[in-house]
């Protein structure tokens, strides 16, 4: 039997979107940020 999944409340959705956005930003900034922000180049 398929389990019922309740829809997410506004806070849940907001936090999930926020974390997903920051995960995506982390990938972009830490991988390619060194070409735009010289300070990042010391490490990344």
């Amino acid at each position, binding site marked *: 039997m398929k389990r019922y*999944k*309740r829809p*997410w409340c506004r*806070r*849940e*959705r*907001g*936090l*999930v979107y*926020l*974390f*997903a956005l*920051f*995960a995506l930003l*982390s*990938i972009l900034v*830490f*991988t390619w940020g*060194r070409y735009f922000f*010289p300070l990042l*180049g*010391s*490490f*990344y």
Partner: protein
Amino acid sequence: MVQRSARSFRRALIKAIVHLMAAFRPAALFRSSSGRLRPFAAVLAVFFFHLAPLLYNGSNAYVRIHDNLEGEWAWLVLLVKSGRALDFSSTSVIPQILGGQPRMTLPSGLSVNVLFIWLFGGLNGYKVSYALSRLLAFVGMYRLLRVYFLPEEKEAFIRLCAALCFSLVPFYVQFGVALQPFLLHSWLNLMRGKANWADYVCLLLVPFYSSIVWMGTSAVILLGGLWLGWTLWKCRLRLQPLMGIGLLSLSYLLVNLSLLQLYLNPDFTSHRKHYDALAMMDIHFSAGLAEALFSCVVSQYHAGTVVALPLLVLAAVALRSQQQEPGRSILKYRFWQTALCLVLIALISLLYGLYPYIAAPLDEFIPLLSQLRFNRMIIALPLLFFLVFALSLSILHHKGFSSRAISIVLACQLVMGFFSNDEWLHNMRRLWGAPVKPGYAEFWAEELFKRINRYIGQPQHSYRIANLGIHPAVAQHNGFYTLDGLLPVYRLEHKVRFRSIIADEIAKDPRLSAYFDEWGNRCYLFSAELGLSDQNNLIDKNSRLALNDFRFNAEAFKQMGGRYVFSALLLQHPERAGLRLLKVFEPKANETSWWKIYLYEAV
């Protein structure tokens, strides 16, 4: 060959991703047929994905350079190679660094890292230490959360993922961030009067795998502050935790006795006497506040970068929802635990950013404040961030947040953890076939430097060298004796003499002269044309950079025993600097080297 292996890796990685996508539910891999999570499999998978790039890259794996290969790790390797790691004599000298400095200026040999280097060599020792520190971070954090923060069985998943996120933090293996959860756990046992012999052993052993400067002073101040706060709050005196702090301090002092001896030695004048607390940091109040805010949202690189802004938003949402519907008493307890961690994060970050304002007015009465910089408590930030993270998630979980939403948040935090770990990222880049920083073997370029040594043809101890565009640690590692280098403490006299070599060059750029005069741990040849950046000591063999106007006092250099300059870039007019180009050393096809060295002789 390297390109082919990178290509095959790329193909394998893409294939694996396609398979995972085809399965559509990657999480199913870590669930049993009954739908229960297989935590051991999940932890193993994350550890494998974390460590595999470092191990797979073999001798050319990327190891962090800043303060590590150019400093902390290079010193330990040099100590083991020279057989002076356990030399406690006050007269012993390491002649290869900065024209010869007392052995006591280098880190203690009573260190787990020294043991690993001795057993496995420089690179493999680092890999073992890296893996061990991550394992300790994970186990310690999981244990701390289970006993003191999230003891309920249904919170196991949050504990597990928060501990995994903490193990991904890109901390330095020498500083001891990995041991913080163990240390806090043992100390909390002392606070509760539940300590056993293992807790005392933990307090005794932590100094062998951490730094007194970063971890020792910070742990003593923070735990002492917590003890004092608790004592005043409860109006009760508990001596056991205070004794624990005393034991920890004693152990740190014994392990680092040579450093203490150095400070008490009247014949040794440290270059730190010339530190300028106000000038070496940003003196504008707004800049200090910005620094504090920055630490709050991304931590600090010595402690380990953490993308903390979403964690703080998560904590705010959790605290708000708890405030609106108080509910169970355990949640009230967690509310105050989260709030305490957030207050500590704010205080530590403010202290870090505004430290000059505290140190400078007191500099006259307590010079140690600016010489030793007690704002290094910033090293506790990653631990506090992930405690806040785990506590906030548990509050939200109790408030009815779905497991699916919490799983996604945890997965996103893991992604942030992987990509903010520079060593993992650079090793992935190497596997992908697009490296931007040198690997371990490329960095030391042993074959290339053997050729330089053969070309010079004199015993290496009979002359001194200096380096331009390349970290002095590379030449030191290859047996050369350098006048430049990076040390946390060295003779003031050497700094003053070395300054006369670079005085004209650093006079061109006030930032360079401030960097050297007011700090000076990096006693390097600087170039005003290149400016002040870490990248200026990593100039690769394909670079076409050339310096048009490099000022260098060759006479002062020769008076200090200097003879050659190893430069990673061409000087257009070496004669103006009193130098003569002898030969250009380019790496041969069978040599692994990041560098192309222009060998100049002082004339």
